[in-house]
Structures are given as structure tokens and as C-alpha cells.
């Protein structure tokens, strides 16, 4: 099971956190501090696994971002690497060659996509296409609602002028 997902920039800034096991706010910031210290300091050619508090943290660096997932001892590390890559590919497809800025300004989109990929710390969908389809369908619903609201408020604004 994936206990949490963490996106940290090379400068140690947190870009996304998702917790599937209960951690208090205090523990969360401690975990982030500890792990980013360990992971950011690892050399480039080393393996992508770090043993930490009886768990394993699988991480992979894409450009300036480190994608980290914490799993149990007996989980398949290689597969988790694939899950990370899977996620990155979906992000890439969604944003169109994703960069860190996309994930900063549209952080909520990154979360929405992650929620279509993982639930309860387990993989939900192996098809990138399906996930892209669902997320864009959601987006369309939101856009439609916005437009509607926009037009209504315009009418009201006109009326109250």
C-alpha cells in the first residue's frame, strides 16, 4: 500500500502531498523535512529506493521535481516506479509537456488527476487514456457550470447597474 505521495522540488519546496495513512499535521511536516533531506542529498546514479522507518520510499526525479511514494517493506518497488512514471505521463498529457510551474499554478489539477489514479493508496486505473477522459469530463462539467454562473451574474450585474 502507498502510505503517502510527495512531490518536492529540488529546492525542497513541497508541490503536492497526499496522505493515505493517518499522520497528524505535525508528523506530516516532520516526515517531509526528514525525507526531503535524505532524498535530495542522494547522488544521481544511486538506486531509487530509500529505507526509512521500516518503510521504503521510492522516488524518481523528473527535471526539477522529485516524485516520492512511501510503501510497505513487502511491496514491489519496481512497480511503484512504474506508477510514478504512469502519473507523470498522465500529467504530461494533460498539461501538454508538464513543467513545475504547471503544478504550482494548477496544483489542484494535479490532485484531481492523482485521485483518479490512486485511491486508498492503491492503483485505480492502468489506462492513461481513461484517466485523461474522466478528468477532462470533470473539467467540462465545471466549465459549463462556471459559464452558467457567469452569465447569470452578468445578467444580475446588468440589471443592478
Amino acid at each position, binding site marked *: 500500500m502507498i502510505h503517502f505521495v510527495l512531490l518536492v522540488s529540488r529546492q525542497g519546496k*513541497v*508541490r*503536492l*502531498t*497526499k*496522505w*493515505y495513512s*493517518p*499522520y*497528524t*499535521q505535525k508528523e506530516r*511536516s516532520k516526515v*517531509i523535512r526528514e525525507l526531503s533531506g535524505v532524498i535530495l542529498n542522494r*547522488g544521481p*546514479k*544511486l*538506486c*531509487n*529506493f*530509500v*529505507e526509512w522507518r521500516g518503510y521504503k520510499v521510492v522516488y524518481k526525479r523528473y527535471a526539477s521535481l522529485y516524485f516520492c511514494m512511501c510503501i510497505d517493506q513487502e511491496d*514491489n*518497488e*519496481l*512497480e511503484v*516506479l*512504474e*506508477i510514478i*512514471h*504512469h502519473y507523470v505521463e498522465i500529467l504530461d498529457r494533460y498539461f501538454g509537456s508538464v513543467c513545475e510551474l504547471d503544478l*504550482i*499554478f494548477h*496544483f*489542484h489539477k494535479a*490532485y*484531481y488527476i492523482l*485521485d483518479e489514479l490512486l*485511491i*486508498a493508496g*492503491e*492503483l*485505480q*486505473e*492502468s*489506462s*492513461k*487514456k*481513461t484517466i485523461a477522459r*474522466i478528468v477532462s*469530463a*470533470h473539467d467540462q*462539467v*465545471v466549465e459549463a*457550470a*462556471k459559464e452558467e*454562473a*457567469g452569465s447569470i*451574474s452578468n445578467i444580475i*450585474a446588468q440589471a443592478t447597474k
Partner: protein
Amino acid sequence: MNPFSSGTRLRDMIRSIRACKTAAEERGVVRKECADIRASINENDPHDRHRNLAKLMFIHMLGYPTHFGQMECLKLIASPGFPEKRIGYLGLMLLLDERQEVLMLVTNSLKQDLNHTNQYVVGLALCALGNICSAEMARDLAPEVERLIQFRDPNIRKKAALCSTRIVRKVPDLAENFVNAASSLLKEKHHGVLITGVQLCYELCTINDEALEYFRKKCTEGLIKTLRDITNSAYQPEYDVAGITDPFLHVRLLKLLRVLGHGDADASDLMTDILAQVATKTESNKNAGNAVLYECVETIMAIEDTSSLRVLAINILGRFLSNRDNNIRYVALNMLMKAIAFDDQAVQRHRVTILNCVKDPDASIRKRALDLVSLLVNENNVKQLTEELIDYLEISDEDFKEDLSAKICSIVEKFSPEKIWYIDQMLKVLSEAGKFVKDDVWHALIVVISNASELHGYTVRALYKAVLTFSEQETLVRVAIWCIGEYGDLLVNNVGVLGIEDPITVTESDALDVIEDAITRHNSDMNTRAMALVALLKLSSRFPSISERIKDIIVKQKGSLLLEMQQRAIEFNSIVDRHKNIRSSLVERMPVLDEATFNVRRAGSLPASVSTMSKPSVSIPNGVAAAPLVDLLDLGSDDILAAPSSSGADFLQDLLGVDLGSSPAQSDATQAPKAGTDLLLDILSIGTPSPAQNSTSSIDLLSTTDYNKNPSIALETLSSPAPPHKATTSSAGMFDLLDGLSPSPSPEATNGPVYPPIVAYESISLKIEFSFSKTPGNPQTTNVQATFINLSPNTFTDCIFQAAVPKFLQLHLDPASSNTLPASGNITQNLRVTNSQHGKKSLVMRMRIGYKVNGKDVLEEGQINNFPRGL
């Protein structure tokens, strides 16, 4: 943009935060934003909620407190539209965790949304529930989720399946409700549903044995067919990862087959073919393929014995191990640890490669490899492996030395073929990584050295040589100091030289230099200094020619700022100075330390407390007067190796204690005691009980030190009248006696164990003494004779003694000999205490005594918890 909204947009806020140059500036911006958001929350405008929450989430990610926004999440979730709900649920998952009370408030909204007509809303609710639900929510909402597993839309089905895995993890009792629904998911074609369904089945199998049986019977063949289909399927662009069709589904299917095959030969048999196929046909040049192979190997090793498959699995691991990719090597090492259980030989073949992994620059690989090596060690290869590891210890990173040295020590301890080899290896480890070695390791080394009498000379010379080069390794210094203190004469006189040694010449003052260096070095810690001080005392008798210099060093420590050091320095100085006649017998060599006892204690990592079963028992025939001696001597001789946590002071005391304890046993027992007792009392400057009584006590006391553990020594040397079976009072009890110091009567000659009497209570006017006896054959019951002594010049009348005990004790009071207590007279009263927790708990008692003096009522109360142990 909404014309009614105020404040900045999310995008602008993020920009201004990113524009901040310093942390203080950022805090300022965030504070301002938070203030705006709070104000906006108070206005309660539904249009702003969406944006406020989005901002709060960003602020939350930066690590600022955002609890004030939690209720906004609930409001958004409760609003009717999908966009509000979407951000509301996201905020809920981000800002809250399952332990917050607020979460309970959302249960009702979740329930409504799970029944919502819009399937997107249902999806949101399932997702939130699956990510953060608590046990209570799981119970409340399980029926909804169970129903949704059969929902028409596959996207809802898969979410419901994973949501169910969370529910059964939180509330395992609910597992059986999901078994049927889960098994229906296994027939699906949609990969998402299949993956989540398999995951749910796996979860149910690990939680519930009946579910496991059910799936094993009904689903094994179906799962094998599914696996075969996707393994053989043609290229499917939607699911293809590096030439493998849906590796994620592969992995999950293999994982589920693993639990189904484990412990069941029939199921294992069914899956043999497909496992062989996956193991042979999967491409291993990409990570995805390796992930599948890795899972397959794990499944092969977990299911019931199919040896041909296992050969295949081991071969795959061998290939992994020689892979250049660090990730693959890491998982190979990981797997080999499991493989070692059934095919040690196959793993041994890769020993050289594994040893190289210990020296890998990657810490994760090193750690795995080291764990594996320690499993690979056996009697045949221990020498070679240890040599390799110790060689590497010299050049390894500082932060790896701790792990590495600990592993080497445990390997050496476990498999060493002979003592000399053990000592050699330990000295190497201490020389290279002495500062990383845990206390129990060098304590164990001392025990071994002590037991290897023919190697004493060799060891002390080797240590001397080592400590000259590696004087910064604290633990090495400690062991060296101890050995030089004990065996200094062997060092100087080159006693017991083995053929393999290079001859060295060490003068007495050379040896002393080492000790002096350790005690004066500014970074030596308290333990080391204390040990050095004891070594000095010992050497003062071993090296009479330089005793003046030794004395000087001791005298310097009189000015130590550490109280314990100062006190010992003064005491030792007085031994050196004024008690030359007994000095040599005082500082005789330690008796051989008992390995078995040490190992038992170490295994249990018992604290230094004195109440444990393995404590040696000591007989004190002379009761109370012996107590102060015990305090000084601490007769538990193996306390020297007590828990690592023992403070320097204890340690020092222990060291001294044991020496003193052993001396009369080896020397002429009749010569020393009287003076010895005086001296010891002198050291403690405690009152002066009658020497005649005490001298005997001290013989018994001292010479029975190792009574229980080393009967042979005891029998040879003992002049003690105390037969072994009397030795039941542990030294712990004697600690308690301290406050009961008085010139005491000789013990009554009874058949059973003898317990020293105690002073149970003492005030200005009254003293109560307890003496104890046991009825033979009834160890639980103690007969207590209480003696009330009137210390005042007045007569007490109407004396009533009352006592209360905890539930595990039963108390019976006989009538007192009189209820009038004349001035300076005494009365007695018998008590009978039955201890239902005999051997586990000691006696305690609360007492009250009322009497009249000159017609006035007096009441005195007290608690008695200084009962001897073992009553």
C-alpha cells in the same frame, strides 16, 4: 471573473508568494491572505468559498496552519453543484485527516452523495471516503459502498472496490460482506475494475481465512486464465508499457495468486505453468518487465514446493544481481534474503557478488547487502567473510561504520570457531570503529577475555599495542584499561607468549602511561575515567616499583570536578596509603565472569535493576550489619556487565565491588577480614558496628560472591558457614537495609532461608523492629515478630498496633505480649503474612500504632517498604 468577489485571485496570490525573497516576506503575504480569507469566511459569501479554499490549500502546502478553513470544506461539500463539491472534497482530503472530529460531520453529506444521481458526484464521494475514512465512517457507509460495487458505470465500480479495501482494513469484521461482490469483479474485462477487484480480493484474503478459502476454491482457475490472457495478448496501445501489456494488472494478479497458492499444494500446482511462462517469456530489459519478473519470483518462492520453478526463480535473481541497474540489484538482494530460507546453496554461490554490494557507494544497497551477508554466514565461511568485512570497515564511510561494526560483532560472536580468533577480530573492530560499538559488545568481549585464562597475556599485549595506535577509540581504550588493570603483570613480564606473537618489551611505566593518558585525556568520558581509576588501584599492587607515580595520578583525581571520581580517588588513595597490608588481596584478579549469566541478561537486555531472577543470591548470615558492605561491594559480581546504561558511578562501584568480593576467596581468608571490614566501613564512614560480628559477616559475604554461579570456586575456597541453600536473599534486599543499620543480633538458627531483621519504623519515642522466619514447606507465608521498643522515658499504655496490606497479601495479627509498654522496655507481637505473589512482589505494609502517654492519645503512622526481597 465574478464581479462581486473581493480580494486577490488564486493565481495572483501564488505569484505574490513566489515573488517573496525571504521567508519573513512570505510569512507576511500569507498572513495577509489568511486575514482576508477569514474575513471572507465571516461574510459567508458562497461565491468566494471556492476560491478561498483553493488558496487555503496552497497555503497549507507551504506548511501554514489552515484549520479555520475546515468548515468551509464541509459547506462546499454540502452545496449542490459539482464544481463546489469537487473542490470541497479535495480540501477535505488535504486539510483534514481521519483523526479529526470535524470529519464526523461529513458522514451525512457523504451518504447523500453516494446516493447522488450524478455519477461524477458519486465518484467524488467514493474517492474521499476511500482516502480518509475512519473506522466509524467505514461502518456507517459500508452498505452504500457495497451496493456501488455493482454500479453500472465501471469507473464507479473500481472506485467502490478500492473504497472497500480501505473499509475492510479499518473494520476487518466487515470483510465477509464484500466477498461475493469482490469475486464478481474478477470476471470483468475492464482493466481498471479488474485491477481494483483483484486488489480487494487480496485484501480480503489477508484479513479473513474464510474469504481466502472461498477465493482459492472459486477463483484460482479464473485468475490463472486472466493472467494467461493478458500475458499472451496482442499489442494493446492503451495498456502497453514497454512491450508488456498492463504490468500493473500482471503484478496484482501474481500477488493474489501468491496468497492463494501459499500453503495449498493443489492451487500451487494449477499455477505452475503460467508462472513458468511469465518467468521465461517476460522481457527483462525494461523496468516494467522487471517489476513483473520480480513479482513472479516472489510468488514462486511463496507457493508450495515446485523445485523446477524455484531453480528458474533463483536464476532470475542471479541475473538481477549482476544487472548494472542499481534498482534491480537492490530488489535482487531483497529477494535473496527470502530465497536463502529454502536454497542456501544457491544463494551462497553469489557470495562474492553480494560482498561487493556491501561496498557499494549506494547506502540502500549496502544496507540490504549487509543484512544478506549476515544471513549467509556459517561456520565454514565466517573467517573469510569477517576478514572481508573488517577490511572494508577501514575504508567505509563514517556513517556506515556503526551498522557495519554492529553486524561484524554479531557475526563474530555467533560463529567464532575459537576464542583467540574472536578476540583478534573484536580488537580489529574496536580499533577501527571503537567509537561506534555499543556497550554490550565490549562488555561481552571482557567476559570472553576473562574466561580465556590462557589468552590473558596475549590479549593484554595485543590491546596494549592497539591502544597505542588507536587511542581515540573510546571502547578500545576501555577494554585495554580494564585488561591492563587486571593483567598488567602479564603484560610487563611477557607471560604466556604464544608462538604467533611478536615479542615486545613493555615496562611498567609504559603500561601506566596508557592509563594516565586515558584518565587525563580531556575527551575521555566518565566511564573511561572511572575504569582507569580502578585500573590504577589494581596496578598499585601489581607494580610496586612505581607505586609512587600511581599514587600521584590518583591524588590528582582528588581535584576532579566529578563527585564520584573525587570520592573514589580519596578512597583509593587511602587504600594505597594506609592499608598496604591488605591492598594486594583487595585488588586480586577478578574471578572469571560467568558467560551464561551474562548472555541471559544480555538477551533479555535486562535493566541494571537488582530484582531479576538471574541475580546471584548471596547469603548474609549476619543480618543488618552486612548491609553497608553490600552497598559498597554490590555483590552481584556480574553487575560489572550489567546493562549498558549503568552509570559510571555504578560501574566503578561494581568493578571495585567484585574485586573486593573475590579477594578473600583466593587469598588466605582468615587473614584479611577484620582489617578489611574496618577499612570498608572506614571508606563509607558509617558507624562502627562491633568488629567481631562484622568480620565474620564479611568473610561470608565476600567469599560467597560467586557462590551460586561458580560452585567449584566456592567449594574450593570457601570457609563460609553458609550453605548454598541459604543463599536466597538477593543483594537487592540488602540495599533496602541501609536505613536499618544497627548493631544487630546474630541471626536465629532456623532451617529455612534467613532474612535479616529490619527496623520497620522509628520515631523519637518508638522503634519497631521486624524479624522474619518461614515455616518450612510454606514459602508464601512469613512469620514476622514485631518488637516494639519504647525509646522515651514515659510508659505507653493502651498500645494498639494496626497494619494494612495490599490485596495480594494476607495478614494475620496475633495478640501482642502486652498492651503496656514500659519506659525503655519492649513488647512483641507476632504477625503472619501470606504473599500470593511470592517471588514476584515483595511485601509492603502500612502500619499505625496508637497509645496513651500520660493520658494523652498519640497516633503514629508509617509505611514499611524495606522488607527483604523474596519474602
